[in-house]
């Protein structure tokens, strides 16, 4: 008898939704054979079996959201093996199901525990007051009081002390907003997808916790666009894009200015990343996705272009895995193809900066000889985390990008 548990499929994944069972009770399963579709904050993923056998019991119902590590099914050696009702195997780590989703009836453990039926946590009034004051989530505290696992004041204080001792880079999620259903004009209510919720959570967290400032740099793109035409004529079957040039310029600027390729670890620490992993913000019908191009530090323009093209294909086909969207150290967001001249983007935590790229469009400018001349110019905006990147560093970083793109042969180095 094997327990099949909710897998951890990427950084920061704490729970997953069981979208669909691909196997039913009684079905035979081979190693590596997909048995279920799991939806995470970032993607839908097929879950392969780690062991061969027969599905003898399904614990998590379709549509149910469960914590990473919780048992979702049992695999037996034969089709008629009886599941063992061991207390340790109870799905105690089950997370709250989304509203309106029917939940499978699950047996509950009878051992004394602070988690009563319905997820209510036994806690003393003082513990609750202290939890409010210290910002501790009381449902995440292990209770030790009264012989019944009640959360008492010392447990909350211990949890707060542990949090101080080991600070987490990502701040806790913002408090849930009260419903405005009554105040708004009438309309059709639709529940948010997990991805939309993740976008809402991460952008809110970013704007509320990262002190953003913005630097705009105009770049003369005539030479770069000319280079693009000749490269694409030469490299048959490949299509180098403006964005590929921008990414390559960013990578070279990040090599020169590693101070931008970093993240805040805690109040006392900043981490300078060993590799340069650039995310490309891609809008899809479902919402924003940021696939990551890994380890670009030594890659050529052509390699970067190929990697970007592969990721764009995966994104279009909905094949992105959580790994494809993990470990970014810098992000490029381009809305130039929509005619947007310039915009400022929200930093993707825990990164320190994001570059927003506008359209390269003809503009009348003053040429070297003082005469008016039409040039194709592009404006890029760097959003910086002021905790790690100061104005001068951001400006030098942008100067570097400008220099690379205005003398684009550098990008072929």
């Amino acid at each position, binding site marked *: 008898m094997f327990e099949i548990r909710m897998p951890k499929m990427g950084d920061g994944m704490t729970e997953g939704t069981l979208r669909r069972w691909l196997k039913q009770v009684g079905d035979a399963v081979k190693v590596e054979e997909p048995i279920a579709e799991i939806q995470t904050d970032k993607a839908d993923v097929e879950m392969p079996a780690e062991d061969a056998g027969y599905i003898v019991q399904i614990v998590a119902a379709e549509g149910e959201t469960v914590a990473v590590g919780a048992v979702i099914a049992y695999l037996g050696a034969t089709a008629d093996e009886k599941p063992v009702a061991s207390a340790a195997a109870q799905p105690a780590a089950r997370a709250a199901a989304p509203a309106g989703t029917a939940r499978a009836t699950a047996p509950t453990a009878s051992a004394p525990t602070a988690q009563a039926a319905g997820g209510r946590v036994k806690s*003393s*009034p*003082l513990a*609750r*007051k202290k939890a409010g004051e210290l910002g501790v989530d009381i449902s995440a505290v292990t209770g030790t*009081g*009264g*012989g019944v696992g009640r959360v*008492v*004041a010392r447990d909350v204080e211990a949890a707060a002390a542990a949090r101080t001792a080991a600070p987490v880079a990502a701040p806790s999620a913002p408090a849930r907003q009260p419903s405005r259903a009554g105040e708004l004009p009438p309309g059709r209510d639709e529940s948010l997808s997990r991805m939309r919720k993740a976008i809402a959570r991460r952008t809110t967290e970013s704007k509320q916790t990262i002190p953003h400032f913005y630097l705009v740099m105009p770049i003369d793109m005539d030479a770069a666009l000319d280079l693009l035409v000749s490269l694409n004529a030469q490299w048959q079957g490949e299509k180098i894009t403006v964005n590929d040039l921008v990414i390559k310029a960013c990578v070279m600027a990040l090599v020169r200015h590693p101070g931008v390729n970093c993240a805040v670890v805690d109040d006392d620490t900043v981490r300078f990343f060993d590799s340069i992993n650039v995310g490309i913000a891609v809008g899809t019908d479902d919402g924003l996705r940021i696939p990551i191009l890994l380890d670009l530090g030594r890659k050529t323009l052509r390699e970067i272009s190929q990697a970007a093209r592969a990721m764009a294909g995966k994104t279009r086909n909905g094949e992105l895995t959580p790994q494809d969207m993990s470990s970014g150290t810098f992000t490029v967001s381009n809305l130039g193809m929509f005619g947007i001249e310039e915009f400022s983007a929200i930093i993707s935590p825990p990164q320190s900066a994001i570059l927003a790229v506008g359209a390269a469009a003809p503009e009348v400018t003053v040429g070297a000889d003082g005469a008016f001349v039409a040039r194709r110019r592009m404006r890029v905006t760097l959003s910086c985390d002021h905790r790690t990147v100061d104005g001068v560093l951001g400006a030098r970083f942008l100067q570097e990008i400008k220099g690379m793109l205005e003398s684009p042969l550098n990008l072929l180095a």
Partner: protein
Amino acid sequence: MALMRYAEALRLAMAEEMERDPSVFICGEEVGQYQGTFRVTEGLMQRFGRDRVVDTPISEIGIAGMATGAAMAGLRPIAEFMTWSFALSAMDQIVNHAAKITYMSGGRIQCPVVFRGPAGTGNQLSAQHSQSLEAWFMHVPGLKVAMPATAADAKGLLKYAIRDPNPVIFMEHAGLYSQRGEVPEDPDFVIPFGQAAIVREGTDVTLVAYSHMVSTCLKAAVSLHDMGISAEVIDLRTLTPLDMDTVLASVAKTHRAVVTQEEWLNVGAAAEIAARIGEMGFDDLDAPVLRVGGADVPMPYAKKLESAAIPNEQDVIAAALRVTD
């Protein structure tokens, strides 16, 4: 200050007040010639005469009725019940007359009577003589209830009771009569009602007590200290009025409370005090408020059964350990 027994302190209080105020007099069974069953009124008839220390027939309703009437007429009677268990036949006079006349007369008639006598449990006095009935009187508006735990408090509270213009239920503890303590000799020394005393300071749990349970809780606090638990002991002194300010301030510090009484646990004084802690100190509590009280049975005569029915130091320690677990 003078070292004296609890019973002597009561006697001193009455003697001082009788000296100070000629309207004060004592009445009760065997209080004069016999000088009191527990010798509390010893020597007083000899000193103040038969008119001010009046031996009565064996009729509690008669004693209580006469004292209530005398108080309404302007005297300050101290009516002694040989034990509070005997006062049950006087309940109509106490509850329906003494407690209500000031209210029903619109304040024109006052009733400054003190009903006093031994209460509490123990000494193998069995079911009819060994019981603690303070909750019965706490329940009635118009009565004040005092239950001193020390010789000094016995004097200070009784003097205040005699001077108070309202009927006072003054419950002494037979088990404390022979306890000695330092007592102020100042004839102006009184202890106003409604002021609890913190008799031992602590930080981990508040033990609320009155009367004989104060010494029980102090012994428990010493044992708890050896177990690493710092107990604060509060002597309420009076149950009506009830000094919740002191109790709540202590609970705000310790976050845990055990309320103790000798009474039966069911609907006792501790239930009222625990409920008020819950109502007024909810956010300060880190554990449920526990009560320690007597077993809900008529008091057994057999020594071992009686010991099992009366709350002791071990019961208090067990409750304190539960709330600090």
